[in-house]
């Protein structure tokens, strides 16, 4: 059912027969390969994307298929790499940069935020910076505080950037191809826990539009807005809640900049209840913006209950696996929160 909704919106029926089951990592690799085949301007670079095949195996055999000049192993120099993407994009190329863990974008903020995002505007519209940055993020792998962050909200705050966060193999490929087409800098937050998840992926080089959320599950009683791995947890929670007779609608954000406010508002208009689920730290995380967009619209006065935000704990991600799980929303957290919300016994 969720996949039907998705397919109807994103993948034309004609390709249905050419749809295989791929992992998220394989889907991204296929997208990269198709982009490189179609356009000589596209190249992939980053730490260990070549011979090693990428820290998470995403680039895999691309180095052998496209050669060392289009799949480029680099020194460990994140700031320089981000700047190199800017320079290449400014002068006719379509660079795709992998930043090995999204946490290391902390070293590249200057180039991403002061240069990539602003050059077009600062130059009065006379240049554009069509670059893509892939950033594996999120917790759940025991990699501790410096390798598990969910920093996407920072970038959603920056005009000039686009930010997407695919939750399925289908979207991972389609959003990547849309990002490579896009004349603006696009950041793709991939989730480490998703790389091995599988799903249907059309064989052709389809695009998933940037800026459009998708209703993964239709429901009457409550809207759950989430993205990335949290969208999958929300879907699982919705199935569990269905057993209780609670019919949850699940909106997968997919894009964090721009945000598809219309889809969210339409859903909340219907359900009159909103739960936002996100892995980033709760305070100033993406759920703050979703909640605010509801709070500033008339629908806020028709809510059956206050908005519920389930975000990351107010702490760095701990190493211990039990603590690590406790630090971000899990399926059970979502189920419990929605049950409480529906029962109306709120804090």
């Amino acid at each position, binding site marked *: 059912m969720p996949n039907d909704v998705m397919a109807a919106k994103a993948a034309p029926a004609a390709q249905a027969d050419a749809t295989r089951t791929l992992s998220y990592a394989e889907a991204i690799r296929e997208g990269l390969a198709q982009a490189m085949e179609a356009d000589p301007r596209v190249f992939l670079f980053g730490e260990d994307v070549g011979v090693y095949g990428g820290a998470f195996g995403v680039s895999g055999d691309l180095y052998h298929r496209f050669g060392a000049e289009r799949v480029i192993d680099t020194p460990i120099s994140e700031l*320089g790499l981000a700047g190199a993407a*800017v*320079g*290449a994009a400014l002068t006719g190329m379509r660079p795709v940069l992998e930043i090995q863990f999204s946490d290391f974008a902390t070293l590249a903020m*200057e180039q991403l935020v*002061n*240069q990539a995002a602003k050059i077009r*505007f600062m130059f*009065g519209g006379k240049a554009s910076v069509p670059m893509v940055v892939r950033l594996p993020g999120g917790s759940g792998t025991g990699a501790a505080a410096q390798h598990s962050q969910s920093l996407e909200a920072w970038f959603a705050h920056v005009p000039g950037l686009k930010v997407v966060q695919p939750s399925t193999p289908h979207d991972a490929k389609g959003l990547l191809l849309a990002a490579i087409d896009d004349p603006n800098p696009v950041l793709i937050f991939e989730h480490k826990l998703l790389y091995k998840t599988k799903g249907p992926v059309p064989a052709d080089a389809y695009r998933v539009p940037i800026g459009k959320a998708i209703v993964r599950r239709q429901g009457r009683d409550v809207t759950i807005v989430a993205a990335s791995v949290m969208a999958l947890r929300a879907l699982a929670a919705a199935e569990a809640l269905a057993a209780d007779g609670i019919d949850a609608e699940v909106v997968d954000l997919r894009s964090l900049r721009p945000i598809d406010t219309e889809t969210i508002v339409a859903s909340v208009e219907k359900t009159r209840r909103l739960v936002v689920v996100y892995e980033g730290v709760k305070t100033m995380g993406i759920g703050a913006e979703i909640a605010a967009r509801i709070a500033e619209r008339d629908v806020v006065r028709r809510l059956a209950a206050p908005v519920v935000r389930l975000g990351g704990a107010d702490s760095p991600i701990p190493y211990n696996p039990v603590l690590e799980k406790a630090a971000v929303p899990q399926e059970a957290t979502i189920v419990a929160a929605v049950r409480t919300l529906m029962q109306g016994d709120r804090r």
Partner: protein
Amino acid sequence: MTPPASATAMSQVAAAPRAELDALDDAALRDALMRMHLIRKFEETAEASYMRGLVHGTMHLSIGQEASAVGSISPLARDDYILSTHRGHGHCLAKGADPARMLAEFFGKETGYCRGRGGSMHIADVEVGNLGANGIVAGGLPIAVGVGMSIKAQKLPRVCMVFFGDGAANEGAFHESLNMASIWTLPVVFVCENNKYGMSMDIAKAMAVANVADRAAAYAMPGVVVDGNDLPAVAAASRVAVARARDGGGPTLVECKTYRLRGHSKSDRNLYRSKDEIEGWRARDPIRRLESELVATGRFDAATLATIEADAAREIERALEFAKSSPDPDPADLTRDVYAE
């Protein structure tokens, strides 16, 4: 840092023949001198406009550094790229910008290079390969690496020249960029305009080596020190570096020792340097120095020099008129150019 020995020597023996000067024909010299005057007069006019409240924000004048900008850029072709700095008016004009559209930008006008959105610190002139000034110290260096990758990937016969200051040479971006340009043999020329200070910080306090160019060895790339107030010398050094880059020889680090005669920005009270030091460098003004040498060697006569300077002055007057009379941007357009479609 006292003025480089060669500079002192040069200002006295300007009449002696030398290869750097001979390498430039009359047209090249006329062009270089014209551009140096344009830069000087442009900045003097911008400064006066600022004082009169016609320009807001701040600006960083390169008065005294004209030979470095013009000499470095002189071997570049129109489709070669440059990346410039906060102190970038000279680079912009040397690469061929129209002073009228530059000044219009300072005035925040819709006719300016950045349609009034960028101002002095972000002037770009993409059509002639100027990929922009930069408000971030060392911000252009990593971008130059990407431009170099792009040139190489597209197999174009182009070169990218990136300017930065002595202060910028202590940013991590310097290190990462020179390293990448070196390992990938990119067609990039790194030009350090060492004007002795990073804002108020004396280079002698900010780094322990005598020359920024001494750091080139850490990237196995040639490092060249040149008297940055000596136009023929700068042009000669740049020619070698540009040829090397264009021929696939990889990057070079060229350091132009020069001096800014004005303060760092409009709010500088010069507390960190002496009047004597400033006056010492004023005596080595790169424009007057080139003019003396041209007269002393008999290349140009005084009348020719006067014509060149007058032409530059007229050009800048025209620019000022244009800037003043140009329309302001429409505030309704505020977010129009945030994203490309």
